[in-house]
């Protein structure tokens, strides 16, 4: 079997409100904490949807659009940087599993 990249994998996910450009974020990340005092920046590797990335300068960035609502970052982050909630069915993103 061909090895799948994360974008190929996420390409198989049905997201809600995909057409909405103004979707409301359901997770807020205080990246100032990630980029100053956090000793591990673990979300950049533990998040199964790779919503947390490091740029060339080593700065952490977060985007919620690819989030599959698994909850991982809420537990993995022990620095108080992640404020996690469920996406609003109407105005948010989030998933619609076809198989689950």
């Amino acid at each position, binding site marked *: 079997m061909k090895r*799948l990249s994360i974008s190929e994998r996420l390409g198989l996910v049905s997201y809600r409100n995909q057409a909405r450009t103004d979707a409301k974020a359901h997770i807020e990340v205080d990246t100032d904490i990630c980029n100053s005092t956090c000793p591990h920046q673990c979300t950049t590797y533990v998040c199964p949807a790779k919503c947390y990335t490091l740029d060339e300068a080593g700065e952490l960035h977060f985007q919620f659009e690819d989030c599959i609502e698994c909850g991982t970052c809420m537990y993995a982050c022990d620095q108080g940087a992640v404020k996690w909630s469920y996406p609003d069915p109407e105005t948010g993103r989030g998933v619609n599993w076809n198989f*689950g």
Partner: protein
Amino acid sequence: MEEKFDCIIVGGGIAGLSAAMILARADARFLLIERGEFCGAKNVSGGVLWGSDLNELVPDFGDSPEGFERFINHRRLTFMDDQSAFSLDFKSAHFEQTPYSGVTVLRSKFDAWLAGKVEAQIEQGTHSESSFLATDILVQEVIQESGRVVGIRAGGEDFFADCVILAEGVNNLLTRQIGIEPAYVPADHVAVGVKEVIEFDKSVLEDRFQLNGRSGLTNEFVGFCSDGVEGGGFLYTNEKSLSVGLVLGMKDLREKKKAPQDILNQFKEHPAVRDMLTGGKVVEYSAHVVSTGDIDAVPERLYDDGVLIAGEAAHLLLNAGKAIQGMDYAMRSGILAAEAVLAAREVSDFSGAQLSGYQKALENSYVLTDMHNFHDAVKLLHDPMMFGAVPNVLCDFGRQFFTIRSEPGQKSRHMMTAAVKRHSSYWDLIKLGAKAARAL
């Protein structure tokens, strides 16, 4: 303001729907709120529903198998190193009788099916116009008055009930809001599951896994599959697909700096797994946090004035090495929560003191009994030797034992000694064996 409900259930997963079925049978007036577009839309599991509780909710479900994927008559536990797989394999016609004691499910389909059964039950009662399964609505908060739960707020509206059952799943924000669990749940209380659903031509699947009609195989893996991280792998047969994935300890994953999707790739490329996946097409990639099944993670009290916590919101789950039991625990706790609500309704008392009967019922059922009894086994599985030295020793021994060279062979005990020396020590294995003897 509408007349209040007997009960509001938050979450239309297995725990919530099971509670709803019991309430509908008793002709109670209730509201179940699910944030997904339909019940099952937000749910992910491995997933095998173990045990026979489903038969209690949907008698003879096995005769009309549109809800589940396959019944399990074939179990396999595989220890693996980077090249080898050493399996314990058990198949029996004993498992072919209904009610089945394990069925594979895909939650998006299964939960929607179960919701249909609940709706049919509501239709038969006197509240067919006033009990609801309401989907696509997010519950924002639990409403409390002088310390007791009286209802919920959803979509800017308030809904009131004598009692609320929180069956919101492992990411239990409302359970935390009312203080039954602390606001921050540490990483060592959970794991993360990642999974792919891989589709096959049905006849290929049946031939490859020796499936007969609706029979199915479950295969769990320990060792190489988790790349040194606490946890293991699984492969389950669905009707026309496989569910293939990993469950990885969150704290260990963080400390070992590993990405779950990379470990999943590596697991799929193991020679023994690769050959089972050939020709398949990945149709979904999913992930979800899952409780570790350690009773230390279960909140002390699963009730309070006007509220009960059911399913994984209460961290009810057991993985003591023989199966990952989460959905049956959700089902039973949902049933018991609904029964506690009905008992409270009899005496018009929804205080915590009355609802504590729920916790007692859980203690008396397999749910908390097994979580207590197998606590040592759960801890044993978290021992690094279980996903390191043990599978390595077994695979090393297997490779020697099954190798036939055209030269004089060694006795098995010499092969075992050599294998143990390469990966561990007898002393470490004896210590582990002593722990295992106590645990099992």
